[in-house]
């Protein structure tokens, strides 16, 4: 059965592995350069004041950084849909299930081998790419200190393995229930995208209770803020901020800026007008604070494993659903 599964899927597996090999060579070359350049920059400027050479680095490697991230964001869904959905649907479409189910093996074994073999190939392909991309982006992640933020979290570490397993079993299930390859591929992509979209919004922030704290709005905080401004026009508009915490994931988003007494402040109360830089320094010296809740950076791997476990559990559930359908209903 393993031989048959390999014989049926070898063309697609070889093609994807070949494409991945090209990507791997590209990432290995640029990655080595990036690691060397980062190392040199660090040793050249000692422990501080290397802002310019470091920011040059992020600019210089912007393209492969986004390409690798984008690829790893798409790969689990695409492989899951195009390998998973036809896995059973193709057999049902062409009637070959009636050939293979009449050999001397049970349907349960047929399903198990197919799911395990192609499923592991899916996970392995994604795992390889994730490993490579995670290694590649170590310097840039250290510079940006943002690997916990939603999109980057998805393309680092072990979570892509969970996504791949989930997308694949989802595809297999969709194929079994819809019984046609193409609609099953479409359904898989749709559902997988929806789950990927909802995960960082609705589930991931609640895996552990976030830490709540007030951050002093000093010059450093003003400089690293994602957003600092007013929520409307006019002098009465309240001041709001979306701050970053190094290596952490700020889950509170944009929150009102408070004064030392804990009251919301308006722009006109602080610094009514002036140039951008003068306004910034004015705000930074006004003794304000911003209440934020965030997931601290030391929880990064806990979250990676939690989320991987969630997706693996979903995959196991889908695999069970497949076998239930195949052994009970389709019989």
């Amino acid at each position: 059965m393993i031989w048959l599964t390999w014989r049926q899927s070898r063309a697609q597996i070889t093609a994807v592995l070949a494409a991945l090999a090209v990507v791997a060579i590209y990432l290995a070359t640029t990655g080595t350069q990036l690691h060397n350049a980062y190392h040199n920059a660090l040793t050249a400027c000692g422990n501080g004041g290397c802002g310019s050479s470091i920011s040059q680095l992020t600019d210089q490697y912007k393209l492969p950084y986004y390409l690798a991230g984008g690829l790893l964001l798409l790969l689990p869904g695409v492989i899951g849909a195009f390998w998973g959905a036809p896995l059973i649907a193709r057999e049902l479409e062409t009637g070959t299930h009636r050939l293979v189910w009449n050999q001397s093996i049970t349907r349960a074994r047929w399903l198990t081998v197919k799911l395990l073999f192609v499923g592991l190939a899916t996970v392995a392909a994604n795992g390889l790419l994730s490993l490579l991309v995670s290694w590649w982006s170590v310097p840039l992640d250290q510079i940006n200190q943002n690997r916990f933020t939603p999109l980057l979290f998805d393309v680092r570490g072990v979570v892509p393995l969970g996504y791949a397993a989930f997308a694949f079993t989802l595809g297999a299930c969709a194929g079994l229930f819809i019984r046609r390859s193409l609609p099953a591929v479409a359904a898989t992509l749709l559902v997988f995208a929806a789950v990927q979209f909802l995960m960082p919004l609705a589930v991931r922030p609640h895996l552990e209770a976030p830490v709540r704290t007030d951050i002093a709005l000093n010059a450093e905080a003003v400089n690293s803020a994602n957003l600092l401004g007013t929520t409307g026009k006019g002098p009465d508009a309240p001041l709001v901020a979306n701050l970053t915490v190094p290596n952490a994931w700020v889950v509170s988003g944009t929150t009102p800026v408070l004064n030392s007494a804990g009251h919301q402040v308006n722009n006109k109360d602080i610094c009514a007008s002036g140039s951008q830089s003068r306004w910034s320094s004015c705000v930074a010296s006004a003794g304000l604070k911003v209440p934020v809740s965030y997931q601290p950076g030391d929880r990064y791997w806990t979250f990676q494993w939690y989320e991987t476990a969630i997706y693996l559990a979903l995959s196991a559930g889908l695999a069970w659903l497949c076998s239930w359908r195949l052994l009970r209903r389709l019989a």
Partner: protein
Amino acid sequence: MTAILEARGLGKRYGRRQALSDCTVSVPTGRVVGLVGPNGAGKSTLLQLACGMLTPTSGTIEVLGERPGSSPALMARVGFVAQDTPTYAALTIADHLRLGARLNPSWDRQFAERRINDLGLEPAQRAGKLSGGQRAQLALTLAVAKRPNLLILDEPVAALDPLARRGFLQSLMEFVAEDGATVVLSSHLVTDLERVCDHLIVLVGSRVQAVGDIDDLLATHFRLTSARRSAESLPEGMEVIQADHTDRQSTFVVRSATAIHDPSWTLEPLNLEDLVLTYMTQAAAGSRTDTRPALETQR
């Protein structure tokens, strides 16, 4: 005569559609059994229940004394060729033989290779490039090289041209002669089966209308023509299957253990096709009196 396949009160329902209901049938060991019936009689459903592709919604079916498809050991003893003789289009003939060898413990490699060779097929050719007849032959080879005790073929020749049809049935007969296995094959055309079968099951509306060795069936069925008379006036022991009356003349198809000759009628034997058609017509006429919707009876 022991039964290799035994169905009792067998039924299969797909959602709201009843494909087979209350079917009781038994297939004797060592015969070549033809299963005939009109389209939609439940032949395919019955055969798929027999090889474990489907599970019944009511009643029981046993093959070789076990529930079909219940164990790999049983599956190794049952060969099945599905209606459209599916094969993997992307795989070569050699791949298919390898598939058979890997998935069946009792695989007869020499037989499979010899047959492909005898058929003049190129092992490196992809199954997708084969003609319908060649594909059917490949599917039959896969099923036969398992060396099954029971070989089930669902309308194996329906899609084939007359030449391929003859070739296929010839191959089937060679296998039967060689192995002595029980074969069940279905068709809606009795002419397909006449040459290869020695036992017949007529299935109409999921009910068995007639069953028996073909020789016995032919020896006990007659067409009787006489001056107009009622069916009741025929002697005891003659079962009237069908009666037709014109103003002057009556024609009966009767089942009778012996040919009773009487100067007032002419008695002639039926050929197999007439016999089967009579049963089919009668069953269809019977079902018309049911409360079924009109569409149903037209199938």
